[in-house]
């Protein structure tokens, strides 16, 4: 069988000379390397680097006693307006910080001023290729700008996108998604990774229901197909209706800060609210 060796960083490889000998006649021009080609077993998760940073973030959150919720959605679903309403309804109660991810601007962060929350902005534009999500190192770089130890709850407003943020954990305790009924019923089927990764789906713009052809029951069936049993809240960030239920969920989430750390995605157990 193969042979192991250990690198300075502690990584262990297993070498399979037989595999390599087989492979060297398949790939490319191998003239001149004799029998030296070999297959090295790696077995490393592609998000492992991000996950390591996320674990470090999580340790820092837990040490500070702050619960962190990663808020995701497509662009225009109403995350920022919902955050405004959330901060307004929870002001005077929970001590809240907001970490605001935006590709280039401070527009969203500016909209959150004046609600007594500590807001830190992360522009992702300087990331690799203009990142379309927050990753754990980006969040880490912004933590020094927030008074973590003085907070009960940190809300991370991710970049508006239904693909990338689902794959990059930032060390959060729970994941929430804002979905607007103007997006159509089929979104959970088109973006199952995102819909499957969240603990709560906030069904926003519900005040528009009488004006749309939107089939709420069909949406719920589609959602159940990818994430059976997920908590849902129907609300309108614009009118404020239903936001209280989301605030109750956040309050319950923040209250679990002193308990042992739960694996990613473990929100409080709440009933589905209509």
């Amino acid at each position, binding site marked *: 069988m193969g042979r192991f060796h250990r*690198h300075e*960083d502690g*990584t262990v*490889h297993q070498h*399979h000379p037989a*595999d*390599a000998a087989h*492979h*060297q006649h398949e*790939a*490319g021009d*191998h003239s*001149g*390397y*004799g029998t*030296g*080609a*070999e*297959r*090295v*077993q*790696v*077995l*490393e*998760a*592609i*998000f*492992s*680097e*991000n996950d390591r940073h996320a674990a470090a973030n999580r340790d820092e959150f837990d040490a500070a006693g702050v619960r962190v919720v990663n808020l995701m959605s*497509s*662009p225009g679903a109403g995350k920022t307006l919902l955050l405004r309403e959330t901060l307004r309804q929870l002001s005077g109660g929970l001590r809240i910080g907001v970490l605001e991810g935006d590709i280039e601007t401070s527009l969203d962060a500016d909209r959150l001023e004046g609600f007594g929350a500590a807001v830190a902005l992360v522009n992702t534009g300087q990331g*690799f*290729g*203009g*990142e*379309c*999500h927050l*990753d754990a190192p980006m969040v880490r770089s912004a933590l020094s700008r927030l008074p973590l130890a003085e907070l009960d709850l940190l809300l991370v407003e991710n970049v*508006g*996108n*239904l*693909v*990338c943020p*689902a*794959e990059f954990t930032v060390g959060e305790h729970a994941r929430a998604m804002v979905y607007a009924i103007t997006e159509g019923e089929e979104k959970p*089927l088109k*973006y*199952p*990774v*995102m819909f*499957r990764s969240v603990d709560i789906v906030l069904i926003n713009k519900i005040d528009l229901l009488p004006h749309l052809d939107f089939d709420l029951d069909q949406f719920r069936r589609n959602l*159940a*197909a*990818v*994430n*059976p*049993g997920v908590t849902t809240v129907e609300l309108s960030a614009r009118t404020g209706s239903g936001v209280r239920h989301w605030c109750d969920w956040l309050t319950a989430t923040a209250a679990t800060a002193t308990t042992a750390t739960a694996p990613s995605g473990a929100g409080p157990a709440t009933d589905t609210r209509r």
Partner: protein
Amino acid sequence: MIVTDRSTIAASGCDTNGRLAVHELSICASMADIVRRHADGRRVLSVQVRVGQLRQVVPEALSFCWTAVNQQTPLMDTTLDIEYIPGEIECGACQGRQVLADPFLCCPSCGSTDVSVVAGEEFLITSIDLADPGEATEG
């Protein structure tokens, strides 16, 4: 389309309307980091990747971005071998194991949603093929 640098792809954006390339672009950058770490300075002939169907990763986009990310680097001639793993569930109601045609978490036999995923969430580099140790990379 000929991509000449990273910014060309980045400019195409990554929005919710389509499966554009930036997602795979940042993934490929992470993959290149892992490969370099394990290659220890040796030339890498190919990289074996295992991708589950329940991941939102499009193999064609992954190959495309791998080439783009590694231009003008020692990994520019390294090929990507992608092994695609279908989603598979185990049903808590009928106890059956089923390969999924779609990424929907319900049992194709009995329709129950009491299912657990047993395959299809993989996303890892399984191995790399290295050239002769005597042949160092330029980078």
